């Protein structure tokens, strides 16, 4: 594949010794990272997120996990961990890029040559910005019961139905979604993974305000939406497996201790700024949460390493998702608890920036709901890992 001229430089970063790689990325971040991207407790979205990714791209630092043949950095697991650590050290804001983390890897695995050529470069240069359309009003945890239909008509599929909770759909240019193309005895069959442009006639997006007051997620209505059959990824009727191939990676991504680290740093700053670091309640909470974070980080590294060996540590991924998200929540709860009157007010100035306690607290709430809720993960683990009877 030809590499876009304004792109990832094509340099083989993975060949560098670890310390050199770390030093280079650190230096680059120090020199190039704009101040408004260094607000770890905030989420970068929309145009600003795209600009940031483009900057990474221009200098060769985009898509660290993608193979170089697809325009990524081709980093192996130890380097990926360094990459993450440096982002964290530089206090880079959190971002969501479903194209990079979800769709890209799926297309590399299961897409057609044409799909890869059409979509991968546009993900890298942010011309395309993807959202995920899986959940429906009556199909959340029980995703396989989804009812949005796609009927074959000539060379096209006609999609009708409703999706909900599609994150950042209002700013996305494209959506990858799961639709029902046939009704089978087993509900996981007859589901198809398909790609659509958000500007296609018949798609209506209605943002939903969440508890943090943001309009991140949306309802998306599909009314006779015509999509070419070549947009199907994998085989028709086998979209469930296509979407599952994705979930392994998504789980490492959302099982990452990154949010917890960000919250811990915010908690630490709060302790200093509010002058409560020395108090027993603070010290006790801090010690407990630090130990737990250490354990989560250890499991994360270990799981990442196993993934890097090409294995599928699915139980560890589920455990990590539970442990990391619940730890993240506990940190924000401690923050709310320890900040006294400042908790419900929210914003506490820290240096030239601020920590928004209530924003972090609210952001942490759904982490145990999306990406397979904590309850669903526990159900899976009790059967798959502990082999408990299911009668």
């Amino acid at each position, binding site marked *: 594949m030809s590499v876009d001229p304004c792109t990832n430089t094509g340099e083989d970063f993975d060949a560098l010794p670890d310390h050199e790689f770390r030093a280079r990325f650190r230096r680059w971040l120090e020199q190039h990272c704009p101040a408004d991207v260094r607000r770890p407790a905030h989420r970068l979205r929309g145009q600003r997120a795209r600009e940031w990714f483009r900057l990474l791209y221009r200098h060769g630092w985009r898509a660290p996990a993608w193979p170089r043949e697809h325009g990524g950095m081709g980093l192996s697991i130890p380097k990926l961990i360094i990459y993450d650590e440096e982002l964290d050290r530089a206090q880079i804001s959190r971002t969501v890029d479903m194209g990079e983390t979800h769709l890209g890897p799926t297309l590399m695995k299961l897409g057609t040559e044409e799909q890869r050529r059409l979509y991968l470069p546009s993900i890298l240069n942010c011309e395309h910005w993807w959202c995920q359309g899986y959940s429906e009003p009556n199909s959340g945890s029980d995703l396989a*019961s989804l009812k949005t239909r796609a009927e074959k008509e000539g060379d096209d599929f006609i999609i009708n139905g409703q999706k909900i909770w599609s994150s950042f759909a209002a700013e996305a240019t494209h959506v990858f979604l799961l639709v029902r193309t046939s009704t089978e005895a087993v509900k996981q069959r007859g589901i198809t993974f398909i790609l659509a442009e958000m500007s296609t006639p018949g798609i209506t997006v209605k943002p*939903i305000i*969440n*508890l943090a007051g943001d309009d991140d997620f949306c309802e998306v209505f599909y009314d006779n939406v015509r999509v070419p059959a070549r947009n199907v990824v994998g085989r028709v009727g086998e979209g469930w497996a296509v979407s599952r191939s994705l979930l392994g990676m998504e789980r490492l991504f959302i099982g990452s201790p990154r949010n917890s680290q960000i919250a811990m740093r915010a908690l630490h700053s709060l302790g200093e700024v509010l002058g409560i670091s020395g108090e027993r*309640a603070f010290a006790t909470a801090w010690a407990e949460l630090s130990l737990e974070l250490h354990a989560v980080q250890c499991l994360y590294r270990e799981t990442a390493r196993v993934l890097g060996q090409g294995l599928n540590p699915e139980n560890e991924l589920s455990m990590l998702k539970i442990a990391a998200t619940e730890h993240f929540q506990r940190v924000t709860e401690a923050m709310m*608890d320890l900040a*006294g009157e400042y*908790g419900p*007010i929210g914003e506490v100035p820290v240096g030239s920036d601020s920590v928004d306690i209530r924003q972090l607290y609210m952001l942490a709430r759904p982490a145990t709901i999306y990406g397979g809720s904590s*309850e669903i993960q526990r159900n899976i683990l009790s059967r798959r890992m502990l082999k408990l009877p299911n009668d």
Partner: protein
Amino acid sequence: MGIMAAEASTVAGESGRMVRDGARGFVSAHHSMKRVRQVRTAEAGYSREVWTALAEAGWLGLRIPESLGGAGMGMAEVAALCDVFGEVLLPEPYIACGLIPCALLAGCANAPLRERLMHGVINGQQVLTVAWQEAPFHFHAGQCELTLSGEAESLRLHGGKRFVPAAVNADGYIVSVMHAGRFALVHVPASESASGITLHAHRLIDGSVCADLGFSDVKISASDILAEGEAARELIESAVGEATLAACAMLNAVADRALAIAVDYMGKRVQFGKHIGSFQALQHRAVDLAVRCALARAALNRALEEHAAGSTRAAADLSAAKAICSRTATLVTRSAIQLHGGIGYTDECDIGLYLKSALCHAAWLGGANAHGTRYMALRSAVEQPA
């Protein structure tokens, strides 16, 4: 209404039931969940109109002696009232601008000032809020540093107070001060704002508003001193103590109602062809929350009893109750969100409003940590046989 009929476990008996019925009538006539969202953009964080209605229905003077124009009821009835206000998240600051200022006026020695203000407060014409806190994590209402200087005709107030509830659009403040080395409470009319009162408002997560007040050489009339010395200190400590009990009642109501809403949802939402309420993992979680609610209610009832009896353990039990009720309400409401799934994370769904209310009431008047610490310090009083 809570999971277990709140009526059954109240200590107020018949009068509590009457208060509750009356308050429910008031609420259904003047309030809806829509208002909880609307007040988030209202400057004061509540509706002055509903405040007036609340006053006209007689609720503000519930705890005022009949001789002073109130209903002469006790804290058990106040708790019953807060139970009803809490379960519907009534935004009007009953505790901050009703219960506390009324207690201060009713108990103060300055009869002419009381005559001048009490009527307006009870009938809702005058909204007073009490400014005693000067720093975060501080909940000893009988201690302050703000100084009232000068004497008689040249009294001047200079300094600040923090986190004053419902301060925006208030008609006046009752401010704790140190005057000539003695603790005192003074009334500061807000109309004087032209002459040196500044107000920095904070919108809290539940939509209510508190403010940091700054006084810059504000002239105070000697006739506006409510009380001085030990009497003033005892007065405000007692009023804030009662407010803390009332806040516990709010927290319990918020928790009970949030659990009831979640349990109701679990009986309606279907996934995997079953009501999610039939999944044992969720059943156990809900039961655990119900246990927490029962414990919190019992802790408050005990604190109310000891308070009514004026026992030596009243202060310890009050702190225990505030710590327990704060922890319980935040736990129950955030768990209720989890039990709802994605819909629970939307602003449109009421359950999030309960979480936000719980967070505010939990942090107000001393949070779980502060009261937990205080309970440990006071516990020796509890352990002595009565």
